[in-house]
């Protein structure tokens, strides 16, 4: 596993960008662009990332970037890749499609499914801040149960879609789940994805201070708590082989119980007022997933 001290000091995400204070996306994007060493073209729909990029004619990211329509991330990326190939330019850059959870789990799902079925040759990163944060925190298919949003005022009733599982059902070669609070985990997964062909899917949870309602200084703390409680699990599925990675692998190996989900809920304003019953339901949902991942885990070697 790469250490932070081993990361390149070249920065592609420039200072003064328009991300909110404490935005988890900025941390993750920094690691992603370093892993690709800037040799990439970003394909990005309307999302917080668009806002982070800034307004014409000034950009905060020192890599080629193509803005595309909301439902079209994966299909536009497939077109970019096909165009580069038709022009014998595919060796110049990795095509990196990157959309939020609404742009992936909801409006972008059809195009993503098509690209996965065709095994189109690009990396797709869903950065999951668990709601439509760019438009003012409306619920998405990836919003967790219990979370209050501006369209679920008393807390969302349903559990989130498991997008990596949907992608696994397409039979693609590389799927990973990561969290922006663990930049080296993000980095290593993008590095691995970079050297594979076909559609590679990375689901990156990104804590969001404004949407989740926590102090911006606590972004990394929240990301770590998400992993320590098992709400977010770090793993990868390589050619069908499932493996826990990083902190999730250590937690599984230790055999100790996870931190109670209640601590994670209490740390965020969006879960304020969640009933004990809902909290218990969330805990059992997390426990069942954790047990499932543990049963599938194939230790290295």
């Amino acid at each position, binding site marked *: 596993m790469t250490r932070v001290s081993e990361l390149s000091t070249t920065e592609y995400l420039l200072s003064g960008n328009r991300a909110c204070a404490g935005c988890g996306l900025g941390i993750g994007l920094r690691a992603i662009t370093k892993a690709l060493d800037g040799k990439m*073209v970003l394909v990005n729909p309307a999302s917080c990332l668009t806002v982070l990029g800034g307004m014409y004619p000034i950009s905060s*990211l020192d890599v080629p970037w*193509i803005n595309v329509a909301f439902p079209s991330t994966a299909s536009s990326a497939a077109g970019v890749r096909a165009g580069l190939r*038709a022009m014998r*330019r595919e060796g110049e850059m990795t095509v990196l499609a990157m959309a939020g959870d609404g742009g992936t789990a909801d409006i972008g799902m*059809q195009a993503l499914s098509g690209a996965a079925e065709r095994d189109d040759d690009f990396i797709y990163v869903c950065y999951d801040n668990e709601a439509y944060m760019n438009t003012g925190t409306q619920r998405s298919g990836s919003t967790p149960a219990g979370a209050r949003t501006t369209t679920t005022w008393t807390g969302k009733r349903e559990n989130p879609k498991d997008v990596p599982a949907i992608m696994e059902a397409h039979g693609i070669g590389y799927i990973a789940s990561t969290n922006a609070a663990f930049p080296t985990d993000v980095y290593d997964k993008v590095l691995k994805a970079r050297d594979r062909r076909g559609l590679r899917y990375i689901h990156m949870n990104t804590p969001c201070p404004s949407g989740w309602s926590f102090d911006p200084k606590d972004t990394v703390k929240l990301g770590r708590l998400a992993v320590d409680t098992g709400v977010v699990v770090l793993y990868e599925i390589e050619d069908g082989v499932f493996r826990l990675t990083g902190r999730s692998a250590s937690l599984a190996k230790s055999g100790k119980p996870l931190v109670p989900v209640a601590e994670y809920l209490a740390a965020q304003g969006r879960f304020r007022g969640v009933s004990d019953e809902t909290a218990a339901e969330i805990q059992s949902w997390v426990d069942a997933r954790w047990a499932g991942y543990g049963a599938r885990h194939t230790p290295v070697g």
Partner: protein
Amino acid sequence: MTTRLMTGNDAAATAVKLARAQVIAAYPITPQSPVVEQLSRWVEEGELPAEFVAVESEHSALSVCIGASTVGARAFTATSANGLAYMTEQIWWAAGARLPIVMCVVNRAMAAPWNVLNDQQDSMSVRDAGWVQLYCRDDQEILDTTAQAFRVAERINVPVMVCYDGFLLSHTMMPVDVPSPAEVDAFLPPRTAPLQIVEVSDPRNVGPVTPADPREDADGALQPGYMELRAMHNASLLQALEVVPAVDAEWSEAVGRSWGGLVGEYLLDDAEIVLVAAGSLVTQLTLVAETLRAEGVRAGALGIRCYRPFPADALRDRLASRALALVYDKALSYGNEGPICGDLKAALYSMDGEPAVYGAICGLGGRDVTLEHLAQAARDALSDLEAGVAHRAPVWIDLAEGSMR
């Protein structure tokens, strides 16, 4: 040059092959499907060195073209009716992003209710999206116009729709002269560099959020705001009024066949009544003009080949001092009138020698339009004109009112 018997869809596919399209994306829909079936076969058999992306929807078909065209590839797709409507967001995107994509629209009626047959409601409903729209009269014009469309699009960095009537042309065989690859290569050079730069060594953010007002870039140079970019787009689109005829003339030089550029005309010189339409109706109207002349009416036909940009000057020039222009629309701006009729009225408004302009709606959902229907509509229009009717509501041709409850 060889002459072959082929359908309109074959003619379109043949032109795309001759144009050496590099990326083709498509989703099946009747009556367009044979275009991309043929192209996919050529790609699979190695006859056409292109990337063929079989997408899961029309939205994605145009999205693939948008991605490919952004990085400089020559991209093509084709669709009809609801497929076109499903693409609508991307139709606007392709134009605003200034991508020279060529798309064949095989004209078909819009649902609901379901109907797979011809009218022109589909392409007419996206006439305002900033594309060039060209309409074809027969299969030969489909081949020639599709090849020309790439040249037009790439010269002004505006996408082009080549529209032709479903089944009436798409599935009807006609003798078509097919130019040789060498002839087309001489006419159509490889695409020049795209407007937008996608290079690792020169990173740019293509199509980001753009403020309404102009704004200085990092070097202090003032860059256009959203409104200026829209005005620049419109100015480029209007250039098609020169570029479409110029490209048609170059095609004529290369393969020896011209379509007249913006409009096509027949027996117009001394015509008092001019029959106006777009698409295969124009071929019918040439015969109707002959019929009316045999009855002693000085009639002519005027076909709109380039509908967007609207050739207002050419139409004013052709229609000044006529008594009547009768427009046959295979579409309707619901609650108003036929789209071509409304545009023509606006173009002729208050000019010297302004003719009366009447509209007729015909052929919706594949309703058979006979020469006699068209001729009778012209005779009725002449009676109304003689009766002094200045403004007339659109007439629906062959409407069985007894069946309407």
